[in-house]
């Protein structure tokens, strides 16, 4: 029993990522074609035909591997569609990695897409199987807003300090997004804008929530020893873990809504594989799942970046700013990008890839060597969690 680094090391040699937008004039098919063409186009020696197998992650923008095979007219290729809540994009990547690491294929592609803006609804909507009608009809922000009062109660944080920490998450991530042409929102925001935004759930206003956008992203993965055949700057997967929670947090008493135990478990395994013993000092930057502002506060502790009960203070002290000791969501995060579900995990990885290759321009974290991509889905008490550690060196 164990969660080990794969037998063969793997590397990402190319990525593509569409701008995340209200893509009124693009379909999911168009977005996939854009992301895949950017990805493949970045490798002069590679054509799509060189890719042996494909994965496509989408929550609701397509069924089956034909979601990708049809728009790209892939012929004779295996394509797998995966879904794992809001960690769907990461799940596409994870399974593609295993395929290369197993030796079954030499070159694989992970893609993710979501077309949310063809619905007239404001947030995420999903179709669930027929049920007995006893579940709360949660909005995503309502589910995640449960973190805030529980965190305050557990650590004695007063309402003003908690509000300031949440506001700081939004301001920081929007400031980073303002530097990124691929972000949906490219404008820094003031504390007043955040705090006066219309209420959505509990203490959360609309500016505490990630946006809703369309987008797609793609990555080409090969075995590490082959990577330099394609690029001089491959990015290596150092560790990776995924945990699907049992849902016990909502089904039995005990869970206190101040942590994501699934993230803690996934991070522990990923760090171990990567040889990371002190994430707070060893990690250069992190892309985390800031779906709602309190999520990022709690994640700083679950990922070992802050001590328990201290993340709100570290955030306010600027530790996670672009110029801080451990920049978090340097690309702007879900806050700036919105959250096209199947694409988000790969979008996070795209920023890690870009930063570790030193190509992030105004957002570049100096001397970035190790990056964390953390992606989750579900809700506190019942979630799925993905954590990966990526490095510029094998």
């Amino acid at each position, binding site marked *: 029993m164990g969660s080990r680094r794969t037998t063969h090391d793997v590397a990402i040699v190319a990525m593509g990522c569409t701008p995340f937008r209200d893509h009124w004039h693009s379909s999911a098919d168009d977005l996939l074609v854009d992301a895949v063409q950017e990805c493949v186009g970045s490798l002069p020696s590679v054509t799509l035909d060189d890719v042996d197998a494909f994965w496509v992650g989408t929550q609701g923008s397509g069924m089956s591997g034909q979601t990708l095979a049809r728009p790209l007219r892939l012929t004779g290729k295996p394509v797998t569609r995966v879904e794992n809540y809001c960690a769907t994009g990461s799940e596409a990547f994870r399974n593609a990695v295993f395929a290369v690491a197993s030796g079954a294929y030499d070159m694989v592609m992970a893609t993710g897409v979501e077309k949310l803006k063809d619905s007239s609804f404001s947030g995420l909507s999903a179709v669930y199987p027929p049920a*007995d009608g006893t579940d709360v*009809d949660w909005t995503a922000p309502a589910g995640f807003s449960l973190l805030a009062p*529980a965190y305050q109660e557990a650590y004695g944080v007063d309402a003003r300090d908690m509000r300031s920490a949440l506001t700081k998450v939004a301001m920081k991530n929007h400031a980073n997004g303002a530097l990124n042409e691929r972000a949906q929102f490219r404008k820094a925001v003031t504390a007043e804008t955040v705090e006066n935004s219309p209420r959505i759930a509990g203490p959360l206003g609309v500016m505490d929530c990630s946006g809703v956008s369309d987008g797609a992203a793609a990555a080409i993965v090969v075995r590490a020893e082959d990577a330099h055949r394609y690029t001089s700057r491959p990015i290596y997967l150092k560790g990776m873990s995924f945990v699907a929670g049992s849902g016990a947090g909502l089904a039995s008493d005990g869970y206190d809504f101040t942590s994501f135990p699934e993230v803690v478990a996934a991070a522990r395994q990923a760090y171990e594989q990567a040889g990371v013993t002190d994430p707070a000092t060893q990690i250069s930057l992190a892309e985390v799942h800031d779906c709602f502002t309190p999520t990022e506060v709690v994640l700083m502790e679950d990922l070992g970046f802050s001590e328990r009960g201290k993340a709100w203070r570290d955030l306010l002290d600027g530790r996670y700013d672009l110029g801080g000791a451990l920049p978090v969501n340097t690309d702007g995060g879900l806050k700036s990008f919105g959250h096209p579900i199947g694409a988000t995990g790969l979008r996070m990885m795209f920023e890690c890839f870009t930063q570790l290759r030193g190509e992030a321009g105004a957002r570049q974290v100096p001397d970035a060597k190790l990056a964390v991509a953390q992606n989750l889905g579900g809700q506190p008490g019942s979630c799925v969690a993905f954590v990966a550690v990526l490095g510029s060196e094998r």
Partner: protein
Amino acid sequence: MDLTSLEPLLPDQGIDAYAAYLPAYVLTDNRLDPTGPAPAKGPARSVAGYDEDVVTMAVEALRHLDAAGGPLLLATTSAPYEAKTAAGIVHEALGLDPGVSAADLRGHRSGATALDLVLRAGALAAAADVRTTRPGAPDELGQGDAAAAFAGGGARAAALLGRAGHTTEILERWRLPGERHDRVWDERFTAEILAAAGLDAARRALTEASLATVDHVVVSSSNPRAAAALRKALRGTVPSQQDAALERATGFTGAAHPGLLLAAALDDAEPGQTVLLVSATEGADAFVFRAGDGIRAARRGPSVRDQLAARQSLGYGRYLRWRGLLDVQGPARPAAPAPAAPPMHRRAGWKYRLEGSQCGACGRVTTPPSRVCAACGIAGAGEAKVSLRDRTARVVSVTRDHLTTMPEPEVAVVIADVDGGGRLSAYATDVPPGDVTVGMPMTPTFRRLWTTDAIHNYFWKLRPAPTRTRPTEGTH
């Protein structure tokens, strides 16, 4: 009065246990434009929450009563379904034996008929109504929402001494299928007919009971003029105006009304005292009771007086929105999903009775019930079901959903841990969302969560636990 002469018709004909249910809200002002001077203190109406209907109110009234061998009856003029029996839903929520039949009684007279069948057939019956008028109708505050429940098969609360009925075909209050509000004939005409029917029934019931006077007179009528005339005629030397006073605080509660007024009278009756109940609607029914020695313990829930005192005032705009009389823009969000018949049937214990599974290995409770314990992960040890519906749950965390599809600007949603084990994710109800705090004790209450695709979705919510234990509450 010579009590020794008062013999019940048959030894077990009577009311063995009873309960009344008044919803948490009262409407006292129905002015569309409230900028002018407030009206003089007038009548008030009882208002069911937006998540209540006759099924949920019947469950609340009946939840501490036992079946007595007879059928389960639900009397109403506002059943949630045509064609589908509402009493069947109540039956499931109460967890009655499948051998107990369930039937609806419809129409204004059905409340008295249900009581008659409690007395004569040992039925377990609830009468419940949610009543509306057009906004601004003269009797808008004269109609109200309530439920009352009675168990027959014994006479611990009251023994039946006499009864009489008087059937009269009369066009008084009526409504076509699909219509929302009663149409009403000129009440001066119907008052005369109903008062005459009521007097006739009352005199015959008193004759059967061999009584000339009683200690308590209770008059219920769909026609307020008839009610006033009957009260005047029958009151005799009895000074109490309790029935009229209660009616001014609740409105006429339809099929529930005779039961509600009777419950209030039983709340106050001393053992051995006699009660005349006259219900004058679509004819009349009259009953004469003698309060039993066990009458205090026979009440299975808070008194009518305590429920009146606990009500919250409701604004007219919210009232109109709750009843669907004001169409308010909701959020850009899909309707909550309709439940499906097979999952509802498979998980009836959870959906209707809030039964979790208790692990035989570790003793912890898993909700919804599952084959594998959520706490210890051991499979197959969770066959034991434990109902959480009468336990207290304490709030672990709370949020306020400002994008709710319910007819409110926001609703509170809580995670709450149940005393004795178990966790609930639930909507809070009968409480302003901002008043729900971590640690607050709450109790489950059966509600209608939403209606989608013409399917009413019933489940349990949480409401604040009573702030004090009522010493007179039934010990059931």
